[in-house]
């Protein structure tokens, strides 16, 4: 494997959790729900995946465990915001605070243990393609899932009837309700999908990217994923591009740190966060495009009238 391949591979590994979490949140926001708890669901996925991999000896079960944990955790958010119509912003923050606390407690027993790594799966024949084979077809299963998720979500949102309904709810939940679309049920499903994606993204961190448990190991990636959704103007393909750009920034700064090029390491570590701000600013410069793409009901509570 040559140097270029190695660099591209590490960028893809860094980008995968961002992409997965962003795709999940994209569907949630398309249904008109703003779940700021991505960071919390992600860290729960990370700790659950690590713990289950340790206890069962199987990293594959760990990945599934992370997915389920994220999904169950998102139900808390769903119950509060969809059933009890609590404020979505505040509840999302609560989910993040709770997730960071709970994962810290669960993970205490696992600090310092060597983790299990989810093995790469080489796809026969395709992985033999020169250069691209190693990059695209000899990866871990979560990477494949992230790519399938992008394609699947694109198809679902823009080519399927159910996706059209989901977007209708996101744009005007009252009209959708009047048309007989199940607003609350659809939103529950969307929130659970978002939770599952965030949980799997967290699992990627603790059993693929750095197979170990460190408290707060998501380090703001959930928030970056939220920013990516805005950057992508709620389109899955653009989320893919955004996630890989961010992957490149974070790997680039790690690379620069290891080379010791005379820039303070703290400034380099701050780059992904500064880049997030820069990206948000650039996107909001084009106000018309943001207005057109933002789901009109985003963040607004819905109480069905009976």
């Amino acid at each position, binding site marked *: 494997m040559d140097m270029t391949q190695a660099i591209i591979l590490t960028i893809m590994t860094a980008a995968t959790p961002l992409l997965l979490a962003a795709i999940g949140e994209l569907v949630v926001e398309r249904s008109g729900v703003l779940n*700021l708890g991505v960071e919390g669901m992600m860290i729960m996925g990370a700790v659950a995946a690590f713990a289950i991999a340790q206890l069962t000896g199987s990293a594959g079960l760990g990945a599934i465990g992370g997915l389920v944990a994220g999904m169950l955790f998102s139900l*808390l958010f769903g119950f*509060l915001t969809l*059933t*009890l*119509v*609590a*404020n979505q*912003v*505040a*509840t999302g*923050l*609560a989910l993040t*605070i*709770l*997730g*960071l*606390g*709970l994962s*810290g*407690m669960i993970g*205490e027993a696992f600090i310092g243990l060597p983790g299990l790594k989810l093995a790469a799966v080489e796809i026969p024949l395709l992985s033999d393609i020169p250069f691209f084979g190693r990059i695209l077809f000899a990866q871990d299963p979560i990477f494949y899932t992230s790519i399938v998720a992008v394609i699947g979500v694109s198809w679902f949102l823009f080519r399927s009837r159910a996706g059209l309904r989901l977007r209708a709810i996101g744009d005007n939940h009252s009209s959708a309700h*009047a*048309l*007989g679309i*199940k607003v609350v049920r659809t939103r529950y499903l969307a929130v659970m999908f978002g939770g599952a994606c965030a949980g799997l993204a967290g699992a990627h961190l603790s059993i693929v990217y750095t197979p170990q448990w460190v408290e707060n190991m998501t380090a*703001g990636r959930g*928030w970056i994923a*939220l*920013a990516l959704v*805005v950057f992508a103007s709620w389109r899955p393909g653009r989320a893919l591009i955004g996630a890989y750009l961010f992957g490149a920034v974070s790997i680039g700064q790690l690379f620069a740190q290891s080379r010791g090029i005379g820039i*303070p390491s*703290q*400034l380099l*570590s*701050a780059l992904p*966060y*500064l880049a*997030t*701000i820069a990206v*948000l*600013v650039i*996107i*909001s*410069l084009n*106000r018309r495009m*943001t207005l057109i793409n933002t789901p009109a009901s985003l963040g607004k509570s819905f*109480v069905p009238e*009976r």
Partner: protein
Amino acid sequence: MRIELKKRDGISTLFAILSPFVALGLTLIAGVILFIALGKDPVAALYSFFIEPLTEIWSLHELAIKAAPLILIAVGLSVCYRSNNWNIGAEGQFIIGAMAGSILPVVFHGWQSPLVLPLMIVFAMIGGAAYAAIPAFLKARLNTNEILTSLMLVYVAQLFLDWTVRGPWRNPEGFNFPETRNFHDYAVLPRIIETGKTHWGFGFALIAALVLWFIMRRTLKGFEITVLGQSARAGRFAGFSDKKMVYFAFLVSGALAGLAGLSEVSGSIGQLRPVISPGYGFTAIIVAFLGRLNPLGIVAAGLVLALTYLGGEAAQISIGITDKVTRLFQGLLLFFVLGCDTLIHYRIRLVFGAAQKGSAA
């Protein structure tokens, strides 16, 4: 079984007062379940968590010291949240405020005069407000999402503090420890009473709460905050500017977070270190909601959340449970508060049996 909500005609005054207490009660019940699950005696655990810190004079002082930054920050956040500005970066404003306030005792440590402390306070408030002005400017000018920008700036502030304390501001006589000089006597926030450790940070917190309570209740500005928060459109018809309100809310909360940061480093720590806050800026979000965004309620809520910090430390020593429980309790509390607030605006009905089919379905 389903849960149905029915909008009340007005708001329920009863539940507006009760809901924080119901939430606290539910958190305690969750605590009992948690301690039983961990194999600890729940009575002993809850005693050492919530009662023991209140039995000694010195720990009451600790309570006031921990509550001070929480109240200061949360009072500012209540202005933001009431006016629908989601500043969640108070942790960063706290750090930048503390750093700006530390310029005099760290960089110009030779200048020792009674003027130093008042200037430090001014610098800290300007520093915090300036840092909060970044997301405010981006929101007012470009409509950039303030939640994400203010949060991202927290990470940047933490790294900036880390760099400063390890680099240019490191104590030259400090054996290479990553910390600044100790503040000289003129730079230390004095105690309120001689016999206890409580410093003026707590006094600032009470003053800030009273002033903002007055503004919210008795002035046109307070009315403007509420109106713009409920409907920016309605506010514009009344001649209020939602853009100016973005700046007002962020600058007030940033300045108060900066003041909190200064009180912490000058009153409690006495120098700058790579980490100066156990997440006060985030815990203050819970304080703001538990206090129902009312400055006086926030004073009480700040004391409650400060108790969870002390209780966590106490329980770790006396019954050997991890202090991570603190953050778990804090998160649960916010969840219950938000859930219980539903009761203020809605009646909740449990419907048993199959859902009735709507005609449009």
